[in-house]
């Protein structure tokens, strides 16, 4: 009885200690940790298990835990402060493909076969070796290919298309509840949301998700998927109205016989056309 109580208390105490130690060692995805950190995690886990089962002395266990927690933190700190230490601790990245050619010696030094390299490249969507200009193995073992410039995905910049800047959307309704904090960060108040919901003709309880995009339009998803909700088309309407007005002015310019009016209509029609070109990326995406 005495012993099992001891195990219980030790386990609870160690659970908290290990949790604190892991938090202290930093926020990292388990798949991205360096091999060295991986070893520290395992040592901490094993020591914690042994101590909580009374297999080793509590004091010895705590000393070991302290060392295996403090050293990784100290090394992390050093590797942040010094480039040399960083390379010493985390290793250096290895170039595997350069100018489209495989560097066989480097491949050998990281102990990879051509097959492994190809598999890794495929997982990055580079199926064709000929498309890869450059590939590097990062210190955590992932391989990142850089495609040849004519094989890279097309961006709006390549196509010379102007796109409107967009900030991240904010979720303002979730599971029928209004989220006040994101609303406030947009500079909006609950009254605004109520008005918008009234406009769409739905009540707050029926909304499973509501998001506001950077232009301030509200997107709603309802619990009842049978209800068809008109999605905001205000921007498209605005664009269409401008387009129609521009066409009207062009017609007036053709129809009128008054020379002064003709030039006025033509000038304004031109102004609207320029305006349309400027507004297109912002109103139609």
């Amino acid at each position: 009885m005495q012993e099992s109580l001891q195990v219980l208390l030790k386990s609870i105490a160690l659970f908290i200690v290990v949790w604190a130690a892991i938090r202290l060692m930093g926020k990292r995805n388990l798949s991205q940790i360096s091999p060295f950190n991986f070893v520290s995690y395992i040592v901490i886990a094993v020591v914690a298990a042994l101590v909580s089962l009374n297999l080793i002395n509590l004091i010895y266990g705590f000393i070991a835990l302290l060392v295996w927690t403090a050293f990784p933190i100290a090394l992390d700190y050093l590797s942040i402060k010094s480039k040399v230490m960083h390379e010493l601790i985390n290793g250096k990245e290895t170039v595997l493909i350069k100018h489209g050619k495989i560097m066989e010696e480097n491949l050998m030094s990281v102990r990879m076969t051509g097959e492994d390299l190809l598999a890794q490249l495929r997982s990055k969507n580079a199926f064709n070796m000929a498309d890869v200009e450059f590939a590097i193995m990062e210190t955590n073992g992932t391989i990142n290919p850089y495609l040849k410039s004519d094989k890279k995905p097309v961006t709006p910049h390549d196509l010379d298309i102007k796109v409107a800047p967009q900030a991240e959307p904010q979720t303002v309704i979730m599971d029928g509840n209004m989220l006040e904090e994101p609303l406030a960060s947009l500079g909006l108040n609950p009254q605004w949301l109520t008005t918008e919901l009234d406009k769409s003709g739905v009540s707050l309880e029926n909304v499973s998700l509501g998001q506001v995009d950077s232009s301030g339009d509200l997107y709603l998803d309802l619990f009842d998927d049978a209800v068809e909700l008109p999605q905001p088309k205000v921007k498209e309407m605005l664009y269409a109205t401008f387009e129609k007005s521009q066409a009207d002015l062009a017609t007036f310019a053709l129809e009128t016989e008054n020379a002064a009016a003709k030039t006025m209509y033509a000038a304004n029609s031109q102004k609207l056309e320029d305006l349309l070109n400027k507004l297109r990326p912002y109103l139609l995406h």
Partner: protein
Amino acid sequence: MTVASQVNQTIASLKGTRATLRVYITQSRDDETRTVFTDALNETNTIIDDLEKRLQTLEFEEPQYKGN
């Protein structure tokens, strides 16, 4: 439909766009977007002014159609 009422209609729809632009100017979070919309609003204002001047002339020329 007379020319005057056609022009009147175009003015009305441009005034509608002006209202929508104002809404987007206030609710946009991006400065660049806001500038573009503000420019568009000013441009629309000058066009509406031009058209309203023309409308006055038209109504003066065809007083029988005034109010359409």
